[in-house]
């Protein structure tokens, strides 16, 4: 079955091709169904691959499917090949799984849109690129998927392009990502320069032969790329704007899958991290935790429901990076999966809320919706408990594991993590209370209602997953550490081993539970019992995300633009001016010489005589008397 791993990518690609060819003719809803089927097919394939991989001895759980030689030039040679190993298959499974659900949901959500089929074209293309990213057997191929998902997100964010804001958001996303990609490319070149190959197997096998500085450089550059994709500081700025896209897009791309690519990449290259200087992982960890705290703070004061979720996504990604930085690769992946479940759930839920309120995204006009849309509310609440870190929901387990490793790597990280956890609990509760509890604040004309089955079904499935995904990797005994042992072959024993004993772990867990409880309590106090006005906690600085984005915008729009215009003027005036100047000076010389051609025969004679004298003088010099 492993040889057929390429089918995983083939399905969405086929779907894409078919939809491009005759998507318009298929029309709604058939186009959507086709796309969904493609995703389902590829999900089935990945499960099959997973199964056959399980059948092998752990050390044999790696497999390379080489389709064809892609770019062979000199020493540089990359194949279009897939690296099938526990890590990539895990990713593939949840990408396709969650993807399929979101496709299903989208059929309902995009109902009636003019470009219905085009939407699914993009979605399938995205899925394909994402799978290439995940399964690619070399940095180059991963980069192919990497940029592919970037483009798809660009296309999907600006899907409703008639609105300038969407278009701008899409452009912003792509360009910001490109900044990251710059790092990725350089890392790729450097790896090639140092090892003569960008195939993962070579990188893994020879990581230790790298000088640690080189390894560090490569890792940091890759992290720049990852920071772009996974919206870490300071390149996160595109993600909040990306919410301009249709909600399924936000759920699939900007919550569940694409944004986690950065984390995946860092986990993927763990041997390089292992080979690099100590400060590299620390830097990653700190950036991650800083992002987590920062985003959580921003999320506390947002009123746009999707913005809240966006910032919370950033914050959760920060957690994952923290995990990567502290060597808890399994925890990172674990949290990535659980996060994929509950964040997708939350987004889809918010989607159906927005749907129900005819596209209104402002929570201040929500409230008391749980009566109107029980299913949505119920599932949403599950998601909330999961992300807030309330046991036994999945989020608790993954986040707790990360924090444990963080403590192990340095208590400071852990402390920030805990604070973030509390904030997370707070703002998520705030969101839930403002949306589903309290008194209805929406206009009378709005009639909130439960969306169609198509949309609720995915919610329920995801809710279930979000609730129980914790069992994937229970900390109690090594045998319950399913994911850990499953991912072993992909981590080459670079996974940090927890040094603190069970008791300490229990203690940390309790603290984090306390943090979550505190956060929820605070939210209850403010938004249900109104003990103190919301304005006290929603400081404007947080509402404006601490002005980072403004700063960027002002720089690009101000000095940046002026510099560019300066260059353009330089080209027009100086460089081109010089060229025209030469021409002009020649003409000037000509007009000057014309004076000599005065028309007076006697001046001509004078000129002739002068010339004669000159010649005579020259020959006089040559004479020998």
């Amino acid at each position, binding site marked *: 079955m492993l040889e057929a791993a390429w089918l995983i990518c083939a399905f969405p690609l086929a779907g894409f091709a078919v939809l491009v060819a005759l998507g318009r003719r298929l029309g709604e809803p058939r186009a959507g169904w086709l796309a969904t089927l493609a995703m389902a097919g590829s999900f089935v394939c990945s499960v099959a691959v997973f199964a056959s991989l399980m059948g092998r001895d752990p050390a044999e759980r790696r497999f390379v499917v080489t389709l064809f030689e892609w770019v062979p030039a000199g020493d540089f040679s990359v194949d279009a090949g897939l690296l099938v190993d526990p890590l990539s298959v895990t990713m593939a499974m949840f990408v396709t799984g969650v993807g399929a659900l979101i496709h299903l949901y989208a059929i309902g959500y995009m109902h009636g849109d003019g470009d219905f089929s085009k939407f699914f074209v993009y979605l399938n293309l995205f899925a394909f690129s994402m799978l290439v990213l995940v399964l690619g057997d070399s940095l180059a191929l991963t980069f192919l998927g990497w940029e592919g998902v970037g483009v798809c997100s660009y296309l999907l964010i600006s899907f409703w392009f008639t609105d300038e804001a969407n278009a701008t958001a899409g452009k912003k996303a792509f360009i910001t990502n490109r900044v990251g990609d710059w790092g990725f490319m350089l890392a790729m070149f450097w790896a090639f320069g140092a090892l003569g190959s960008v195939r993962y197997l070579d990188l893994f096998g020879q990581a230790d032969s790298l000088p640690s500085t080189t390894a560090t450089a490569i890792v940091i550059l890759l992290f720049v790329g990852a920071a772009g994709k996974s919206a870490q500081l300071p390149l996160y700025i595109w993600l909040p704007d990306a919410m301009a896209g249709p909600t399924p897009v936000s759920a699939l791309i900007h919550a569940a899958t694409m944004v986690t690519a950065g984390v995946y990449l860092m986990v993927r290259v763990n041997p390089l991290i292992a080979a690099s200087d100590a400060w590299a992982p620390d830097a990653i960890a700190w950036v991650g935790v800083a992002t987590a705290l920062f985003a959580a703070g921003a999320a506390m004061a947002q009123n746009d429901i999707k913005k809240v979720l966006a910032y919370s996504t950033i914050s959760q990604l920060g957690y994952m990076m923290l995990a990567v930085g502290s060597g808890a690769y399994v925890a990172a992946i674990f949290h990535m999966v659980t996060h994929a479940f509950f964040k997708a759930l939350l987004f889809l839920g918010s989607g159906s809320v927005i749907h129900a309120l005819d596209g209104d995204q402002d929570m201040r006009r929500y409230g008391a919706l749980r009566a109107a849309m029980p299913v949505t509310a119920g599932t949403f609440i599950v998601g909330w408990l999961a992300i807030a870190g309330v046991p036994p929901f999945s989020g608790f387990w993954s986040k707790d594991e990360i924090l444990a490793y963080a403590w192990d790597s340095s208590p400071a990280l852990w402390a920030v993590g805990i604070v973030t956890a509390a904030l997370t609990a707070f703002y998520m509760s705030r969101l839930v209370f403002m949306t589903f509890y309290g008194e209805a604040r929406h206009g009378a004309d709005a009639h909130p209602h439960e969306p169609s089955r198509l949309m609720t079904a995915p919610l329920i499935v995801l809710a279930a997953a979000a609730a129980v995904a914790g069992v994937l990797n229970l900390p109690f005994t090594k045998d319950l550490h399913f994911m850990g042992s499953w991912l072993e072959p992909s981590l080459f024993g670079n996974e940090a081993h927890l040094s603190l004993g069970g008791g300490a772990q229990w203690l940390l867990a309790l603290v984090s539970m306390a943090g979550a409880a505190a956060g929820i309590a605070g939210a209850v106090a403010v938004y249900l019992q109104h003990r103190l006005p919301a304005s006290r906690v929603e400081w404007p600085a947080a509402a404006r995300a601490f002005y980072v984005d403004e700063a960027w915008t002002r720089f690009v729009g101000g000095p940046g633009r002026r510099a560019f215009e300066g260059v353009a003027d330089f080209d027009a005036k100086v460089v081109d001016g010089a060229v025209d100047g030469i021409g002009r000076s020649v003409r000037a010389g000509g007009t000057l010489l*014309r004076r000599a*051609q*005065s*028309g*007076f*025969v*006697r001046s001509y*004679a*004078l000129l002739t*005589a002068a010339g004669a004298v000159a010649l005579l003088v020259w020959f006089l010099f040559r004479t020998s008397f």
Partner: protein
Amino acid sequence: MDPAGLSTGWYLALAVALFAIGGVGLLVRRNPLVMFMCVELMLNAVNVVFVALGAGLNDVGGQVAVFFVLVVAATEVVIGLALVVAINRRRSGATADDVSLLKG
């Protein structure tokens, strides 16, 4: 008899002077006729040179050359005068400076 009694240099010096005077004359006079006369002066300077050098070389070639120079001088004068006549038909009393329509 022996012309070398008197060095060729003297003749040449004289010729050079004559040539220069003629040249300057052509440059400073506006009346075309006088300009032609100046050309004649220059040609005569040449003649002197030819004869003197011929004598110095004990060779008749110089005298032969002078003979042809005379012929050419004559023809040139004829054409020159014809031109002056033709121009004066159109513009009587035209000086060399007056015919300067073409310039630049």
